[in-house]
């Protein structure tokens, strides 16, 4: 896909989305996270100093993309819950509004920069009063104490607060792959051959379905589960591998390690 990533892109999380969409004309959902991560890591290596702010903002971008992609990736079939679909549209509109707002202020910022560049071509007169008038000036130290000085010094020298990323606007992901693995390890040996659809029957949240799917893949990789899919886009059947040797605890250790 050849997404070239430059550092200024990461100044704000919506910037990347904007940039990707506008510059690459990609469908957001087709953006390969891997490509972005690679380009980003390369960019980090080239940076003179490691910039924590940029790094954390990148993580937020990645998180937003993951969320959007999971929504898109899920097999929805014909049984799309109308409420869910509506919610998705609503969320999309919200995102669109945010992107437009982000773009607006980006433009405004570049205008401000132009203004300040123009203004910086002039220096103000700051020579101040001539000596003859100095005796007239009011007593500036009136009411100033040693403590005031101390406070002012502390204020001037205080370290800037650490930067953390606000992820409140991302839906909290309650499901974890580790938990899903645990559940599958309890469930699958009992049921024998089971379809993925059945495995995710009680789940309402799309992200939970994704997590469960990842858990299935994980166990497949470890050789504990067998997966079969006869047709493309067809039913996925999952079964317990009879010659699985590892104990449950070992599996979890491997996964968590």
């Amino acid at each position, binding site marked *: 896909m050849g997404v070239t990533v430059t550092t200024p892109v990461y100044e704000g999380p919506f910037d990347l989305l904007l940039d990707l*969409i506008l510059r690459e004309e990609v469908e957001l959902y087709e953006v390969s996270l891997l490509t972005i991560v690679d380009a980003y890591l390369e960019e980090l290596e080239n940076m003179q100093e490691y910039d924590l*702010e940029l790094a954390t903002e990148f993580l937020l971008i990645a998180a937003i993309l993951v969320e959007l992609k999971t929504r898109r990736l899920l097999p929805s079939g014909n049984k799309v819950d109308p409420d869910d679909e509506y919610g998705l549209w609503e969320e999309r509109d919200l995102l669109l509004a945010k992107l437009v707002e*982000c773009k607006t202020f980006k433009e405004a910022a570049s205008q401000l920069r132009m203004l300040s560049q123009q203004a910086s071509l002039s220096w103000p007169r700051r020579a101040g009063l001539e000596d003859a008038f100095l005796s007239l000036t009011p007593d500036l130290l009136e009411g100033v104490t040693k403590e005031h000085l101390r406070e002012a010094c502390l204020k001037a020298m205080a370290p800037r607060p650490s930067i953390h990323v606000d992820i409140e606007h991302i839906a909290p992901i309650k499901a974890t792959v580790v938990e899903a693995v645990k559940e599958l390890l309890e469930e699958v040996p009992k049921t024998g051959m089971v379809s993925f659809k059945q495995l995710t029957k009680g789940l309402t949240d799309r992200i939970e379905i994704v997590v469960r799917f990842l858990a299935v893949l994980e166990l497949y990789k470890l050789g504990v589960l067998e997966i079969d899919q006869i047709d493309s886009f067809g039913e996925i059947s999952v079964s317990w591998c009879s010659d699985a040797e590892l104990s449950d605890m070992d599996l979890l250790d491997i996964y968590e390690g």
Partner: protein
Amino acid sequence: MFGCGTFRHGLIRYLRGLGIKVSEEKSELQKVADVDVETDIRRAIEAILMVAIDPVSPGILAQLFELPVDEMERICDSMVDRYEEAELGFLLVRIGGGYRFQSNPEQAQWVERFVLEGQSRRLTAAAMETLAIVAYKQPISRAQVSAIRGVDVEGVMRNLQQRGLIDEVSRDVGPGNAVLYGTTQEFLERMGINSATDLPPLGEFVPSSEVVEALERSLRVVSDEVTIPSNEEG
């Protein structure tokens, strides 16, 4: 002040401004006197601006000369024009809510070589965008800025505040009483404008319909397509 010299004419002018008839007929001499009054005020303003460290507001000048503020603004604005026309190495400008003398931007290359210490450090793109949000949406809370930027802005806002570009201006009346931020006089001076209302309207920066459509297209939800999830890209 009306006791001092030619400024007596200022009273006459002022009374006339209030619609009070002072003289039935304006003689030629009075017209000249009026010009003199203005010349005197002009000189006094020039002297004051020469020693002032910050822009001097028309309000302060009005108080000093005991003239209405709008009259003061009229005089000062005409001085601004006059200095511009004179094409000197400096200008009298209206900036940051007041008037000041500053070097003419045309002479920047020479002043730059003279003033060893450069202008204040350049703002990062993140800081500039945050500043733009505060400038256009003031008064605004940090949480509101955060929501627009999509990231926590505490560090950036603190930096802008340390540089004197933004400051706490009031508190939200709603629950929580969040601190609300606005831009400062320093900001106006940095931007070379007189007041925040002089900023170009935000509407000018709203992306074109083509851009909005492009954004919209890319966010379109295609629901009838079933794809196999892959764990490589997720």
